[in-house]
């Protein structure tokens, strides 16, 4: 293990480590802690110039109620779910198929296709912006959650295919071979042999895609204009423009917007990290 386990160090170093650890955490999360505290701060504190001191009282209930009552943030959150959940289902489903095709079959152009998906995943969004917006407008899907979903599904399929393909490559190929010898059809091999083994990959990709799409801001501003379809990232930014200097409301809104992916991360931590660190251990 590296660095040397702290248990082997002198008692002084051990105690120091135990003190420094929480301090470092507080320092690291300072922006977040500041926002969390401000979200429960009474508005009068801000007026009195008490921005970062101890709050004079607890106004969490008022602030959060005010955010939901006086702004369409509830609608924004709903829209974000309407975009995120179908995208997760669509992108994961499509990439199960593409990943399977690229991992199991040998055919001309296999690697070329694979690296095309990989490269597509890294390109700048701006090269797609004008045509995708134009196409969405023509299809009558501009300013709808469906327009966002279709784009996200297509784009996330690139990343998901990379992930799925490498995952299936790691499965024992003998399983597939013996099924073929038995005369099992390709579709049934996929459906009944490979798919059940892909559960961990499906879980990991679901949380990752959920977070990526929930946090998307660029496409939310390019493909949506009106409130009725606006996801929470773009919504929060427009609210920030209205709530000038009402930092307690901005903070409460930020916390609300950040909560779903954070909850997702905590619930599915192992899968999340497994997905994100794919390839970080071997190569």
């Amino acid at each position, binding site marked *: 293990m590296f660095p040397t386990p702290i248990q082997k160090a002198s008692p002084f170093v051990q105690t120091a480590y135990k003190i420094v650890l929480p301090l470092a955490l507080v320092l690291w999360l300072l922006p977040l802690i500041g926002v969390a505290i401000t979200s429960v701060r009474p508005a009068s504190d801000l007026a009195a110039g008490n921005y970062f001191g101890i709050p004079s009282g607890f106004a969490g209930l008022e602030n959060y109620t005010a955010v939901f009552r006086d702004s369409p943030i509830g609608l924004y959150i709903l829209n974000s779910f309407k975009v995120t959940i179908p995208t997760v289902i669509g992108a994961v489903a499509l990439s199960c198929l593409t990943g399977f095709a690229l991992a199991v079959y040998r055919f001309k152009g296999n690697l070329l296709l694979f690296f095309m998906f990989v490269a597509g995943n890294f390109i700048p969004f701006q090269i797609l912006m004008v045509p995708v917006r134009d196409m969405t407008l023509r299809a009558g899907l501009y300013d709808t959650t469906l327009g966002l979903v279709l784009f996200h599904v297509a784009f996330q399929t690139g990343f998901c295919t990379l992930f799925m393909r490498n995952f299936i490559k790691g499965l024992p190929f003998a399983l597939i071979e013996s099924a073929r010898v038995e005369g099992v059809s390709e579709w049934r091999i996929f459906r009944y042999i490979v798919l059940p083994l892909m559960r961990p990959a499906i879980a990991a990709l679901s949380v990752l895609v959920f977070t990526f799409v929930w946090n998307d801001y660029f496409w939310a501003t390019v493909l949506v204009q009106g409130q009725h379809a606006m996801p929470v990232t773009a919504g929060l930014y427009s609210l920030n423009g209205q709530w000038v200097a009402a930092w307690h409301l901005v903070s409460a809104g*930020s916390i609300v917007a950040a909560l779903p992916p954070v909850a997702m991360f905590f619930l599915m931590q192992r899968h999340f990290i497994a997905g994100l660190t794919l390839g970080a251990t071997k190569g």
Partner: protein
Amino acid sequence: MTKAVSSPPGFWTKNQQKLAPWLFLAPGFLMFIIYVLVPIVQSIWISFHDWDGLGEKVWIGLGNYVELLDDDSFYTSLKNNVIWLVLYLLSIPAGLAVALFLNQTVTGIRLYKSLFFFPFVISQVVVGLMFTWFYAPDFGLFSKLIEWLTGEQVAVLADERFVTYGIIAAGLWPQTAYCMILYLTGLNNINPEQVEAARMDGAKGMKLLWFVILPQLAPATFIAMVVTVIGSLRSFDLVSIMTAGGPYGSSQVLSYFMYEQALSEYGFRMGYGAAIAVVLFLIMMVFITLFIVRMLSQERNA
């Protein structure tokens, strides 16, 4: 059951293995063609036109690119992109440092690790708003800190000299968390025997890290490089949230400059915007090609 034995195998049975991959690929690949491959070609095509997004496209050849060469904003964006790229790479050693700090087994360390990872999970919109507020002159915590350190009031986001650095600092926060998690996973999978053997030989500290640990962390470093370089060139959210490219376009980057030209109150110059996007695309393709070449050689060795 008996049918399969008696009759000669049909077209499907004979060619199943050849056709199956294409059928499995079809839906995903089709979506990818429609939304990614075709738009890239279209963008390149549009970049040779003068177009407001509604009327007729007018062919102007390399006109947009010639105009770019004479546009000060273009050079500012390019310069800022380089600054982003270079400074963003700091998140790799920073992430490694945090990972080394946290790679211990004490009570509650798992929770510490997840909490350190937090900044990456939240949206860049929220990160941008947080940092804007911390940079606020007069009362912002960072402004206070800077004032205390230098004895000078600095409005970071309103000052052309500092604004880009201020935004990058906000970006380094989640990016460091990302690199940290990559390195923590890498450290977890290090070969303990090699480390012990090196310790027996008297290696320790920085020497051990440099000659024994880092080579084993190479895959993690590679992924960290990929995501950091791509992330730095993609920087859009933070610039848009924190300054909208200001003051006076001084925190402009190519991704935001493109958006501003093509789709904002400053005008609907789709052709010009597309030309900027093509330049950014070409810059990124250099890096993407490097990554792919390396991945390809790994693939061949596997």
